[in-house]
């Protein structure tokens, strides 16, 4: 009834090619942004901001990066956490070694450094694909954290290999409280998501999809495979690098190379798979599912046990939580293999017809 495009006429190409052609979508997005930028910082507690919303946004960005590579360009990568590590340590070293370095420039430089490393590790993709490429990107996953531990310079010779991030200051404004850090992360994520959305609608995005769907055909119609694949690795790693820098600077405050392990790469890959391969929206949905659900389950199981008067043995809650979480992942993959983004799409289609389906 409310969600339909009848009567919205496109009078120009510009209108026709808008990101959100339906005005309800535009209003919805603006409302979400207003909520995110104004309501949440005003009303959310520190726990919500630091433990739930900031990691959700950071992981969304990382998942978005991987989605560009895996979902749009079709190159499977298991090195996401490594590229995040490059971003985090690059930002730290730029801040440390370049005097008066503005933090935003450091974040951009960390993305560029990660992009360079990503392109280097993307070279094998020119020859191999699929699972074999995944194995090749595993090399990045093991090599980079090892290098960061091995070479003391990267961690400024910290005896334990842990780096503590510098304070985040932009034009004299210190981002120290949770709500300020949240706003910083939100702004960066919104801007980069917008860029990503436009990238995949552009010439480059179509080239990625062409390579994903059939690289021989793409080459025949004049798309340079080398360029397209390497740019995909570069752009994806840029996003992961910035996500890594935010992970260190806005979320944890201190990171160690071992924190960026294969486990983290898998988590981000699962976000992409569960959220929806080849969907910007899906990256956010997947990140929400993977980061938030365990926390809610954990709290919920404890609360439920308390209400029911059960005394759960210590550690059992975590096991139940893992079981339920694993079960839900399998359930969602069976019911909707295309991910949560597809579920959202179906909902939208149904909404168009509601309340009078055929």
């Amino acid at each position, binding site marked *: 009834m409310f969600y339909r495009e009848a009567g919205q006429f496109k009078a120009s190409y510009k209108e026709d090619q808008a990101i959100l052609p339906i005005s309800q979508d535009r209003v919805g997005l603006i409302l979400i942004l207003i909520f995110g930028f104004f309501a949440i910082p005003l009303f959310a*507690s520190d726990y919500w901001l630091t433990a739930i919303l900031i990691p959700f946004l950071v992981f969304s960005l990382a998942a978005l990066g991987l989605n560009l590579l895996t979902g749009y360009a079709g190159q499977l990568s298991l090195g996401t956490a490594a590229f995040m590590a490059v971003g985090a340590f690059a930002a730290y070293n730029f801040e440390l070694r370049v005097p008066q370095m503005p933090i935003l420039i450091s974040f951009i430089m960390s993305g560029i450094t990660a992009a360079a490393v990503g392109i280097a590790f993307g070279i094998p993709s020119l020859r191999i694909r699929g699972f074999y490429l995944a194995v090749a990107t595993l090399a990045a996953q093991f090599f980079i954290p090892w290098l960061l531990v091995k070479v003391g310079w990267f961690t400024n010779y910290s*005896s*334990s290999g842990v780096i503590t991030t510098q304070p985040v200051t932009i034009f004299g404004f210190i981002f120290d409280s949770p709500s300020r850090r949240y706003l910083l992360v939100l702004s960066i994520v919104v801007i980069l998501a917008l860029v990503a959305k436009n990238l995949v609608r552009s010439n480059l995005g179509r080239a990625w999809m062409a390579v994903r769907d059939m690289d021989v055909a793409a080459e025949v119609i004049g798309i340079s495979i080398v360029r397209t694949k390497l740019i995909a690795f570069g752009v994806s790693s840029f996003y992961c690098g910035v996500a890594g820098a935010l992970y260190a600077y806005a979320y944890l405050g*201190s990171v160690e190379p071992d924190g960026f392990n294969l486990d983290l790469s898998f988590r981000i890959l699962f976000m992409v798979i569960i959220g929806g391969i080849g969907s910007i929206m899906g990256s956010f949905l997947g990140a929400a599912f993977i980061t938030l659900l365990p926390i809610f389950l954990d709290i919920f199981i404890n609360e439920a046990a308390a209400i029911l008067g059960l005394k759960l043995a210590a550690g059992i809650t975590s096991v139940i939580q893992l079981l339920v979480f694993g079960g839900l992942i399998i359930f969602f993959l069976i*019911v909707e293999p295309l991910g949560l983004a597809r579920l959202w799409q179906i909902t939208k289609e149904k909404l168009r017809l509601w309340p009078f389906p055929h």
Partner: protein
Amino acid sequence: MKLTTILLALTLSFFLASCGDSPDGGGPEAVDTQFFGVTGYRVGPYGPSGAPIASGYIDYLRLLNERDGGINGVPVSWEECETEYNTAKGLECYERLKTRNKNGPTAIHPMSTGITYGLIDKAPIDKIPLITLGYGRTDASDGRVFPWVFPLMTNYWSQASAIVRFIAQKEGGLSKLNGRKIVLLYHDSAYGKEPHGILEKESENLGFSLVKIPVPHPGNEQQSQWMRIKKEQPDWVILWGWGVMSGTSIKTAKKIGFPREKMVGNWWSGAEVDTLAAGPSASTGYYAASMNLSGDHFAVVKEIRKYVYETGKGDDESYIGTVLWNRGVVQAMLTAEAVRLAQTKYGATSMTGAQVRWGIENLELTQSKLDSLGFGDMVPPIKVSCENHEGPGLVRFQQWDGVKWVAASDWIVGDKQLVRTMVEESAANYAREKNLTPACLDR
């Protein structure tokens, strides 16, 4: 699709239910209690090491309630949060436990170096003291730079130095170390690199040669490392292992025929889980450092058995008296004693984080005090001060006799001067990096 709808509705409803309840759901708020936030890990790859510690910690809190009705009449309450040894999860736990009580979580034992580093900057803002017993940031021993962090008992550098002293004792004096060869077999991670600096200095000072051999994580295959050890023919092997690595080292040592009596583990490779993993007989003779003795003959352990386990309130009886369970008990005792001390200054009610911090900083447990608490010689007497957040820096060595750990030395202190110099240097670097002026908080 029907099923999906039901599931979505269910998911949504319990999302809402849990959001509504979460922030202040915790323990009973009506009674004034001293709330202990417990972060530990019982699942995941390091779960077997984490579970006894968390159980010991909570068992001592239970004892306080059952035997004494709390601390000076203030009942003790607690909530455990599972970190899985994962930094991100640990931070979430910290934020969650912080909201559970008006006074906060008393003091946090992060139980992981990664989580400790993540919390060091947060603790002063939230006014929650961190106690890191035998892990975390070594230079936090300088309390003027890290007023809120307490690596009580001993730190990694004191331990490494004490291990060298112990080896010297076995060799017949410090001078006998000259010309000897010691291999450091370490977990190739930030944790494993922690003792490098101090051992290098010690090897320069004492004239032994140091060979460092890394074992990549997780360390369940060490054939090549031990072949190299066989080639090097060291006099001693120092084992700086963690998790599955420690047991594998002992097992491989047996396989290539390296005497276990010449192996000294650090305190994270010296628990029952490690020796039993290698096989009880394969580990016979193996030494390990510890900051607390194992065994169930201590009065406090007997009381926990009586008040907690015999009334059916305990966790897992098989943990009692093990190295790690005892360590959990010690952690709880130190925290509770800090609360008790703070109460003498601020009154017998529940204490805030800042008050507990004062309690820890001024904590002094003499031998007679330890005896009256039932700890005897499980831990050495400890005295904390603003300058020295570490305390005695004493390490005791235990030897696996095939069935259990037995004490194999007295309390040994390392090169205190050297450790202190390195600590102050490193802490001063940190202060410079962070623009801090080192100072004592309220005396």
